[in-house]
């Protein structure tokens, strides 16, 4: 009981710091946005798109750092969006398809980004900058109010688009041919998904770093799909899991002094294990 009191006292002290409140707000919003698209991306077999685009975002952030831009997102978002469009909109007749396209673009961007950072070093601590961008150690705790507002605006845009076009996204996820036959502009909506995914990934670099972004997209969706079979239920459950994991991960990391990104991912892994167990028990009972 005494330990819980100590933890609550520490938390109430920590919440007095504005950067903790900013981290929670942005962390929860990013996790929510990532999870909404996660179900669709997992079902379309694009789970690794998060990884691929995050490497592109890393490369873009590296170039933005060298150019000393006031906010790296001004360059990272357009470049990542372009690459997302190139990957997700690639046709069946493309010479380099699907996973190969992701591999080519992502590895190329990662290597280019690291090379650029080394040659045109903007700070004295290159490995620290690279490590922070890759693993998101404490970047979420160094947000300025302008970063928070930008994240809020972008998250509202993503949420609005998802809610407005939910039915279309549902149709495209399960049966693109049927969607085309129904008169849905599949290419346009695939483009929309690509753009939204790119925005979420650039935002998520601050939270979990480039290497761990896939976890935010994939784990909540997979956990929800263990238990819920309908698209709507799985999406709602995925959103709840993701938000809880992000909030819990941030709180645990500031209490225990652990890296924020990895702590959030570990909480997601634990959630996945629990939901897998629940799903297995449900299957046994049925």
């Amino acid at each position: 009981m005494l330990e819980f009191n100590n933890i609550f006292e520490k938390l109430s002290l920590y919440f007095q710091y504005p950067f903790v409140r900013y981290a929670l707000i942005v962390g929860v919003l990013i996790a929510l946005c990532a999870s909404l698209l996660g179900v669709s991306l997992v079902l379309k077999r694009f789970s690794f798109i998060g990884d691929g685009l995050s490497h592109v975002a890393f490369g873009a952030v590296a170039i933005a750092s060298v150019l000393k831009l006031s906010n790296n997102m001004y360059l990272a978002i357009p470049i990542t969006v372009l690459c997302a469009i190139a990957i997700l909109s690639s046709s069946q007749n493309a010479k380099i398809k699907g996973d190969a396209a992701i591999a080519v673009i992502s590895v190329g961007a990662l290597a280019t980004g690291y090379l650029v950072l080394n040659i045109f070093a903007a700070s004295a601590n290159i490995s620290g900058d690279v490590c922070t961008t890759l693993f998101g150690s404490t970047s979420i705790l160094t947000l300025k109010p302008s970063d928070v507002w930008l994240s809020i605006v972008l998250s509202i845009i993503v949420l609005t688009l998802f809610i407005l076009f939910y039915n279309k996204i549902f149709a495209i996820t399960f049966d693109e041919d049927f969607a085309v036959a129904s008169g849905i502009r599949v290419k346009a909506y695939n483009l929309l998904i690509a753009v939204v995914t790119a925005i979420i990934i650039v935002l998520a670099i601050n939270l979990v770093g480039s290497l761990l972004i896939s976890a935010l997209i994939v784990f909540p969706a997979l956990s929800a799909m263990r238990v819920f079979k309908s698209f709507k239920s799985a999406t709602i459950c995925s959103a709840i899991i993701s938000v809880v994991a992000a909030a819990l991960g941030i709180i645990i990391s500031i209490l225990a002094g652990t890296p924020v990104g990895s702590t959030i991912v570990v909480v997601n892994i634990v959630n996945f294990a629990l939901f897998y167990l629940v799903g297995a028990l449900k299957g046994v009972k049925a």
Partner: protein
Amino acid sequence: MKKLLSILLSFILLGNMAYVNAEGINTAQKEPILVEAKEPYFIDVDLTKLSSTMVFGEVYNMLVNTQDYIGKTIKMGGMYSSNFFDLTQKNYHYVVISDAMACCQQGLEFVIEEERKYPEEYPQIGNYIEVVGVFGVYEELGTNYPYIKVLELKEKILIQ
């Protein structure tokens, strides 16, 4: 003969109070450096009570939003570091903290007002120090630098 050798060995071991520094050279261990406060103080920001993740975030906040901390009494603990800058021909002293992954480090400069000889009257580089001081900003060569004006400093000797 055996008794003589064991007595000799004991004297050598007892007499050697050194620890090995980063270069592997035995050095004589000096007394921990202490700067005592001349008057009582009240701590406004105590970083020693925060987790390492929080400390990193708060120090970053202090470096970015310096105006919010000027005049406040700060207590922080970290690794002592020092470097000599050719342009000003001065030694600068820092308390350095790392983030949870230890890949990123931040440092805050501290200044001891009284005249002290470096390195004899400063902590051993790499040792843990706790500094209490007043946060301020000074200008040098056209750039503003945040620093802590030391009220109290305690060094903890690294035991290896």
